[in-house]
């Protein structure tokens, strides 16, 4: 039989899901929108968690921050899973070719013994900080109550695992993949005076319960000082020590941090902007934790770039925070 298709039956009867249409109108929606808004359960939870019987599942009170709608916090990068892995696949391809290049030409093992030692003492232990960041972001992904927020933290969690793995591979390049250099580097993390304020800070962060406090401390304050210090200033300092090739192996981190500023800034701005109450609480946390992050990095700056570099970065963070209405103390910017 002949089938004649009438044009009317080809026309869509709606443009997107109702939840998306309620927010953005009934017009064709982006993949980011359909994947990220209102897909998380909101109400009528059946049982209180045995691990937190005072609250329900997906309870908004797992942070002191109050938002009329947490979906107001969105990702400027518009990452949903597919966009995220696509982006990181490209970044890892570049990293892979850099690692391959260094490996083939023995760029690290050619370095003086002393410089190799410095890498194990000053750079590689950051893999442990990354694991802490990984755990913190995974916790936040489990606690946050809007997909737009939760997914950014899940992506951050896996990113930090990946960054920890790239740092570990620097040691594997140095020791010819035996694990010996990683063992050595871990002793600095555990016992070297230089790392103890940082290790204490990381362990203290692991017991922060409020997930928004945790994202502020980890992703805004600590990263805000640590990434510029390590991957810009210390990177330049390593170059002065003749280890400019190491730069190739930390390119991922530099690109990553630049990108992460987009969402951390947007998130902070939205949450501060929601209410004076939010701003006040965030200010308390900034005042409490920013000096801790600074102190934790101080021995590393002193051993490498000098304290001035860290102070400059601190001033930059202060400017960044000021833009969203928060103040950090202790800086003559």
């Amino acid at each position: 039989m002949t089938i004649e298709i009438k044009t009317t039956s080809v026309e869509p009867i709606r443009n997107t899901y109702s939840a998306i249409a309620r927010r953005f109108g009934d017009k064709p929606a982006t993949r980011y929108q359909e994947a990220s808004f209102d897909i998380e359960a909101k109400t009528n939870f059946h049982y209180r968690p045995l691990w937190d019987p005072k609250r329900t599942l997906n309870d908004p009170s797992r942070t002191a921050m109050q938002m009329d709608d947490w979906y107001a916090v969105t990702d400027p990068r518009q990452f949903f899973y597919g966009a995220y892995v696509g982006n990181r696949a490209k970044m890892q391809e570049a990293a892979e070719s850099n690692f391959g290049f260094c490996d083939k030409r023995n760029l690290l093992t050619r370095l003086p013994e002393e410089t190799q030692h410095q890498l194990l003492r000053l750079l590689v232990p950051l893999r442990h900080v990354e694991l802490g960041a990984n755990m913190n972001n995974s916790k936040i992904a489990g606690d946050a109550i809007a997909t737009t927020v939760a997914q950014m933290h899940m992506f951050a969690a896996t990113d930090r695992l990946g960054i920890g793995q790239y740092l570990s591979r620097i040691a594997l390049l140095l020791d010819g993949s035996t694990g010996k250099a990683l063992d050595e580097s871990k002793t600095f993390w555990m016992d070297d005076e230089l790392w103890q304020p940082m290790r204490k800070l990381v362990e203290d962060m692991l017991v922060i319960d409020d997930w928004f406090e945790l994202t502020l401390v980890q992703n805004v304050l600590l990263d805000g000082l640590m990434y510029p210090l390590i991957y810009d200033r210390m990177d330049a300092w390593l170059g002065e020590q003749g280890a400019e090739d190491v730069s190739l192996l930390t390119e991922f981190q530099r690109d990553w941090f630049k990108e992460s500023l987009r969402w951390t800034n947007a998130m902070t701005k939205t949450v501060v902007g929601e209410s004076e109450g939010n701003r006040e609480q965030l200010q308390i946390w900034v005042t409490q934790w920013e000096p801790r992050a600074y102190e934790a990095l101080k021995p590393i700056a002193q051993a490498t770039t000098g304290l001035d570099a860290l102070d400059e970065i601190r001033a930059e963070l202060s400017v960044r925070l000021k833009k969203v209405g928060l103040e950090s103390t202790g800086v003559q910017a």
Partner: protein
Amino acid sequence: MAIKNKKLNLKDKYQYLTRDMAWEPTYQKKEDIYPDEQFEGIKITDWSQWEDPFRLTMDAYWKYQAEKEKKLYAIFDAFAQNNGHQNITDARYVNALKLFLSGVSPLEYAAFQGYARVGRQFSGAGARVACQLQAIDELRHSQTQQHAMSHYNKHFNGLHDAAHQHDRIWFLSVPKSFFDDARSAGPFEFLTAISFSFEYVLTNLLFVPFMSGAAYNGDMATVTFGFSAQSDEARHMTLGLEVIKFILEQHEDNVPIIQRWIDKWFWRGFRLLSLVGMMMDYMLPNKVMSWAEAWEVYYEQNGGALFKDLERYGIRPPKYQDVANAAKNHVSHQAWGTFYQYSQATNFHTWMPEEEEMTWLSEKYPETFDKYYRARFEHWDKEQKEGRRFYNNTLPQLCQVCQIPVIFTEKDDPSVFSHRQIKHEGERYHFCSDGCCDIFKNEPEKYIQAWLPVHQIYQGNCGGADVATVVEKYYHINLGVDNMEYHGSPDHQRWLDIKGLKPLQSNSEKKTAA
């Protein structure tokens, strides 16, 4: 630096790249960093015994997953551009997708949340990392499902508000309470429930039927996302089996706890899967295999091999497995019969099988279909064709645990409803089975909290007292558009229009269209 030791093998290298990044804390107490690891009574003496279920570093993960996503989205684009929805066997099929998007996709999201949480909770870093990768995978599944269904939503009714409905519609509290139950448990029970009982033991019964069903019914988008998601599932299943073996090997005191959880989660999973059973037997215009056949292959055979393997730990097959095995010839018919009657309150259409489908059911269920179900279905079919489509307007009694109406029958007598009740602190509670009743008795404080949709309607918490108000205002179902009888519905009309057919008096247009 001179090369001193032996080069690491894959396994040791992976450990250096994951769990070796962890350390023994000294500034904070371990119990404060991992506060949830103790209360369930599971004893872990040595996390270093953890066997990584797969060895995927992040760089490889990004690479492989990006490759999968690229393929998947190329097909979604092609599907939408070519109006792929017109190539399905019959628009009745889309109702399986409505059930999937509102019943299953939200579970993927809940799995993401659950794994993100336990991915922080264990003090063993190897286990944490495995859980985190599953967390992000499950996020993937929930999102690719939104995208796969996006085009269908533009052309059919009933797919438009799935997450909202998952929180509210009476029968969707069956899957929702299942995952709420797991997520509100401790981390070890969560893994036993989801990684082991669900992913390892039962997931084949969920995905293989849906995806093969899609393949048999011309639904390219669903086949593609389903199989692409399943490629992650192989990793999740490996995790599920490793978890169980690890816990059992750690301490003999763990065995009775795990056995109780396996009993519980097998039964909850089995009840949940009755929705899949009716989908397979009744909602697919082209049938793949019967529910009973799927159960035989994927539970009786595979599950049998698995539990034989676990015998050496002192684990026996789940309690009431015999009841479940016997029920394979009944559950799909009983479930469909129920959804047919309550179709005014579902987010999808129902219908009575056509004659050739009845014949198929008789063949596949020689001992039960003709004897217990056919006559009633033929009667309903006749009534519908004579303009008296049957809807049941009394609200059903729900099981306090699985939340399915009390519709299943006794193992030894299919003419008697299985119904248990007990009194707890002066209140009477109702159950569909001994399996559900046992679960309640083990944790009454948990199950008395259940948000039972029927009670909630009676208590006035669902926007109104009459069904129409609840359905339209609270559930966001467009009454008679998204649901009720398929024949004569807007979806049906539109399908006939697409296929260039005129509506006929009988239900036989599928045959003329083919």
